[in-house]
């Protein structure tokens, strides 16, 4: 039933293609994305050139998407960048969901926890996501886990609010009251009865977080506060190409297209999931 939805099909296939591209990057005619060659600087897309490996071996290479001002292959960098983007997107969504679910269940079901916890969440929501992310990265060394955590933190309050509102309506259902009457312990009710009934909307929310995380990671990298420049990410590539954008637009164009396509695919998938899994939130046809 889920797979009959065209949004799910299109978004899912596009995302699958990206995942294949990311995992199979070494076998798709790429070179090490960190290699550079002064002789092959600022090549146009499709131009043939040479690139020297770390061992000093000179390879003939076609620069499908051109090269940047250091003579690095944009095609290789974009494909390897896909790995980082998808990893950051999915991991951030999982981290945000995990913490958000626990907080939301607690706030929704344990009344004494609701007030204090939600005020903290309100506080976090009052700070722009990008500022929190920059602050977190600035506090610790800029590494992959740091960036994931930095992107996940501002999403936690949103997930918490969603889960809390779901729990508030589910806790009034007679089957929850029946479980109380059957002597089921509170923890089992929260995780055994209530949590499974929140899964569908959470899955949908997860895809939106994933798309936003991919964007935010690129923004952080672009601003130079994200992953260090030696790791190829779409944001890094665009940041480095920015100065020469007028002369060599391919430096920004190709990673930009990948970024836009990925975010679009994830969002389309999310819309499709929302329409099929969660009839309450579905837009009326």
């Amino acid at each position: 039933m889920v797979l009959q939805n065209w949004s799910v099909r299109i978004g899912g296939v596009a995302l699958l293609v990206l995942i294949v591209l990311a995992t199979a990057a070494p076998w798709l005619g790429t070179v090490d994305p960190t290699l550079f060659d002064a002789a092959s600087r600022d090549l146009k897309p499709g131009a043939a050139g040479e690139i020297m490996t770390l061992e000093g071996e000179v390879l003939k290479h076609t620069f499908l998407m051109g090269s940047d001002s250091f003579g690095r292959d944009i095609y290789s960098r974009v494909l390897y960048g896909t790995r980082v983007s998808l990893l950051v997107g999915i991991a951030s969504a999982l981290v945000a969901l995990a913490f958000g679910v626990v907080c939301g269940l607690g706030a929704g079901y344990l009344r004494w926890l609701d007030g204090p916890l939600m005020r903290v969440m309100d506080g976090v929501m009052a700070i722009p996501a990008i500022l929190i992310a920059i602050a977190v990265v600035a506090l610790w060394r800029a590494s992959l886990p740091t960036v994931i955590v930095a992107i996940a933190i501002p999403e936690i309050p949103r997930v918490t609010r969603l889960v809390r509102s779901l729990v508030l309506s589910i806790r009034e259902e007679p089957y929850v009251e029946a479980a109380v009457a059957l002597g089921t312990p509170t923890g089992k009710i929260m995780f055994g009865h209530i949590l499974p009934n929140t899964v569908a909307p959470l899955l949908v929310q997860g895809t939106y977080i994933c798309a936003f995380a991919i964007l935010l990671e690129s923004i952080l990298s672009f601003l130079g506060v994200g992953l260090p420049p030696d790791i190829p990410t779409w944001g890094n590539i665009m940041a480095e190409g920015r100065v020469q954008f007028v002369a060599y637009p391919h430096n920004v164009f190709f990673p930009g297209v990948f970024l836009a396509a990925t975010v679009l695919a994830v969002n389309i998938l999310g819309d499709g999931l929302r329409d099929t899994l969660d009839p309450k939130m579905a837009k009326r046809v």
Partner: protein
Amino acid sequence: MSILQVQQLSVALPTGGDRPEAVSDVSFEVHPKEILCLVGESGSGKSVIAQAIMGLLPKTLPVSRGSIQLEGEELNGARQARIRELRGARMAMIFQEPMTALNPVMRCGAQIEEVLRFHGQHAAGARRQKVLDLLREVALPEPERILASYPHQLSGGQRQRIMIAMALALEPVLLIADEPTTALDVTTQAQILNLILELQKKHGMGVLFITHDFGVVAEIAHRVAVLREGQLVEMGAKHDVLQRPRHEYTRMLIRAVPTLEPHSREARSDAKVVLTTTNLSKTYAERGWFGSRREVRAASDVNLELRKGQTLGIVGESGSGKSTVARCIVRLLKPSAGEIRLGGADLARMTPRALRPLRRRVQIVFQDPYRSLNPRRSVGQALIEGPLNYGVPRAEALERARRLLALVKLDPDVLDRYPHQFSGGQRQRICIARALALEPELLVADEAVSALDVSVQAQVLALLEEIRTRLDLAMLFITHDLRVAAQVCNHVAVMQHGRIVEYGPAREMFLAPRHEYTRALFAAAPGRGYAFGG
């Protein structure tokens, strides 16, 4: 000439439904000055017929065959614009739930006036006067105040009167009433039925009245049409159908209607007392911003006693506090004052921790079978949850679950299935089995048969009765329906505004009610004193 003529009407269901057509080859007529009752159980297609006539069917349910003629004009296939002109002007409809049928952010007066305005009736100045006249006609007190009220400020009965005023605004020849009193309390229901009868006589309208309740049919109908799974099985004058039903299905439905005659049932007064409540009270306090407090007394000073093997009924209308009492006894709510003694222990003041070992002794069955089972857990998981909580080994719990399914007359092999695969009546049986899995001393049934169709209701009532005698259970039976209470209760407590106004043996109370409110309840029961045949 008839005002409405429906011929060979068929409405297709989307593929994958439980039958190919929602309504198949239904033909009937409504004459002027006549009330035709369309009776059927849930899923019989009675509301679909009403929607087809009004042109309100969703796109997924197209009219596949047949003709609908209003005053000789064909409606099936007519232009939308024409149907819109006729709706309100020549035919009007009132719905089951007046709260959702009215716009919550519009004043009631404006909503009625809108009907007049859209159909270009009356000058702007005269409209207000017309609305006030309408409100007076449906016997609403203080029309000026009602005019300026929002729907939530009115009671359910008042809201339904607004709906009726709106339907009558343009003097339609046909009024379709789709279960207009089902959501109302029994005393309000009696008033609304009277109002519809009165207005129908005065205006000479034809009324198509849709209901599932044979009591209501007996009160209001001139002719009756019985629907079953989209097909008309019997149609005729009221007395013919109700007293000499020809079709087997009609006979079965009429037999299933519980009577107000209490069953004579000897109540052993020497049996062990299972439950006593002493001055049980529940107060909800709302604290205002500036320290002002508003208190709502949901239940006050409720004293009950229930012995082994007996059934105590708590009867009352909505807001009477009957469910609050049930929830306090199961300790889903914490009472504000009073005692709940189960055996020796007082449940009222216990902490959740101390309460847990005692919970198994009191179990509850809820009203809505569709929400009482977790949709993501199989029947087996639901049935063994309780025993597992109290340390029964899994294999033994499963064995017990099988026995219970047999007890509630379901196939023991359904343990792996999920709730959506069962009908409402079957789900309610599963809920009963789940409650019995802990071998409780007291079973609380909170409106447990109210959401069920009348034939299923009769089966579940019989099942509860059988279980009570077989297991020698004490049962607390909460209901708004006096006829149901008459069937199962040894003792009855009548509640109003959170207090018990009359409490005593069922037989005595049903034969000679003492309190004024109890008498009003009896007087309002639809179809009382009508001799059903079958």
